[in-house]
């Protein structure tokens, strides 16, 4: 639905999310504890925390792949079910996910990968072709439409998986360390690319990373998440005009603050292991 008035009120919220996993009652691992976060139209938010703090699990819960043990996920104010055959919420046109390892289907061309979501929604062929061509054009992949994933560089692969989410018209895009397997140079270009996509397509993004510079460079707001059990304990508003520079004194200040937090969390993990 291309109704801007409706879109203005779009939101994706996690309220008091708790999640544990374990084989039996004796060996339960608490992954996330009482964590809340909210995404509103057009925002770019980042979750940063030490490795293994449950960031990926939190995204899985927000995308509907996992059901939280406690708390609730609200999409536009309404509680969301788990993706099952019966409960279809949230739909790909609400929430899309971009994974770290691209998750491209090796037997499909770039165009066919991008068309996947539309095919699953059983859209008419004509409409799919038109939409895919349009998206590929807008993200600069037209020349690669008939390439297979193994013929692409890492950056191009991730571009394709972003295009695939854009094709379903997802308002909320959840990104799980999408650029962490890319080299430094490519990562820089992909960050630029992502900001461009964010503005051009008017999307709402939540981005998981463990890179401080990336988080400060990209987002409006940074959530700091503690190590296991993961819990969002602080929300930092990044008050810097774009494009941002890592040499900006304020940038350095933000980084110092986040670095101190991460250091504390990593030390905590270290001591727990002893």
């Amino acid at each position, binding site marked *: 639905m291309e109704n801007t008035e409706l879109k203005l009120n779009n939101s994706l919220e996690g309220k008091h999310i708790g999640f544990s996993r374990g084989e039996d009652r004796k060996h339960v691992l608490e992954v996330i504890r009482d964590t809340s976060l909210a995404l509103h139209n057009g925002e770019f938010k980042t979750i940063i925390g030490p490795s293994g703090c449950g960031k990926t699990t939190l995204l*899985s819960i927000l995308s509907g792949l996992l059901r939280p043990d406690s708390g609730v996920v609200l999409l536009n104010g309404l509680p969301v079910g788990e993706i099952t055959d019966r409960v279809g919420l949230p739909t790909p046109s609400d929430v*899309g996910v971009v994974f770290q390892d691209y998750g491209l289907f*090796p037997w499909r061309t770039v165009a066919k990968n991008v068309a996947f979501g539309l095919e699953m929604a059983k859209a008419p062929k004509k409409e799919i072709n038109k939409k895919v061509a349009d998206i590929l054009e807008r993200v600069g992949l037209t020349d690669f439409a008939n390439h297979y994933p*193994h013929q692409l560089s890492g950056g191009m692969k991730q571009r394709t998986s972003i295009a695939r989410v854009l094709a379903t018209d997802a308002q909320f895009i959840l990104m799980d360390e999408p650029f962490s397997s890319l080299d430094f140079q490519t990562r820089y270009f992909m960050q630029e690319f992502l900001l461009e996509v964010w503005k051009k397509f008017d999307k709402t993004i939540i981005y998981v990373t463990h890179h401080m510079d990336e988080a400060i460079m990209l987002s409006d707001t940074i959530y700091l998440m503690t190590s296991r059990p993961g819990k969002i304990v602080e929300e930092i508003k990044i008050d810097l005009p774009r494009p941002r520079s890592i040499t900006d004194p304020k940038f350095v200040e933000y980084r110092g603050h986040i670095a101190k937090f991460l250091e504390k969390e990593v030390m905590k993990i270290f001591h727990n292991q002893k």
Partner: protein
Amino acid sequence: MRKISQNSITIICAIISIGVLVGFWELSAFLGWQYANIFPPPSHFLKDLSENGFRIGLGSQSAGIPESIASSFFRVFAGLGIGFFFALIAGMAISMSVWVKRFTMPVIELLAPIAPIAWIPLALVVFGIGNQTAIFIVFMGVFFILTIATVKAVETVPEHLLNVAKTLGARKWQLWFNVTFPYILPQVFTILRINFIAAWMAVLAAEMTGLRDGLGAIIMTGRNLFDNNLILLGMSLIGVSGFLIDTLLRWIQKKFFWWDVRL
């Protein structure tokens, strides 16, 4: 100077090695090193064949070489095709439920090791002498192994690829057809190729024991007529045909099931 590719070196070496074998065979017969009528070289059996108008056997029971090759090929491919198709369906159906898997897998694993040749006597009784028997034997030779391969392959479909498809809106059946099925196809086809040799041998054995035509029957005719030219001709044809089919299967794999899912 143009560099010769690794590929062409491989082909050249293959031609040389086969050439040396055939050359030695011809030469030894020519010099009388061994009994040329027990191991007649190609020059002998091909000459003999052309004198008989490229037909094997006597009178009304005789068959042409192309017909023999065609009937063996038809049997192998029909059996492989039917086996591949039903094994994929059976394997995926079994994988859909843990309970079905627990009850059916023991039976399948019990039947899989029975050599296809062992089914020949039963098949002859049930289907009689004809293509059905041969196709059934090839089918039995590949079906159980491919079903097990399919079940195992389904277990290797990575969770993250299924998650991607789920977040893009794929539901149960769509996941099967759009992720699991294309993911396992190359793996199962590889197993098919490996098992082709077993299927090939099963057809030849069937043709030697019961059926009256096909490549295996050439050897039996030769044996019955004490005609070693025919026996060696049959053996050579079996070797060359088997090689050609394997090449064809490899080509099919490269052309249609090329994606390496274990990247």
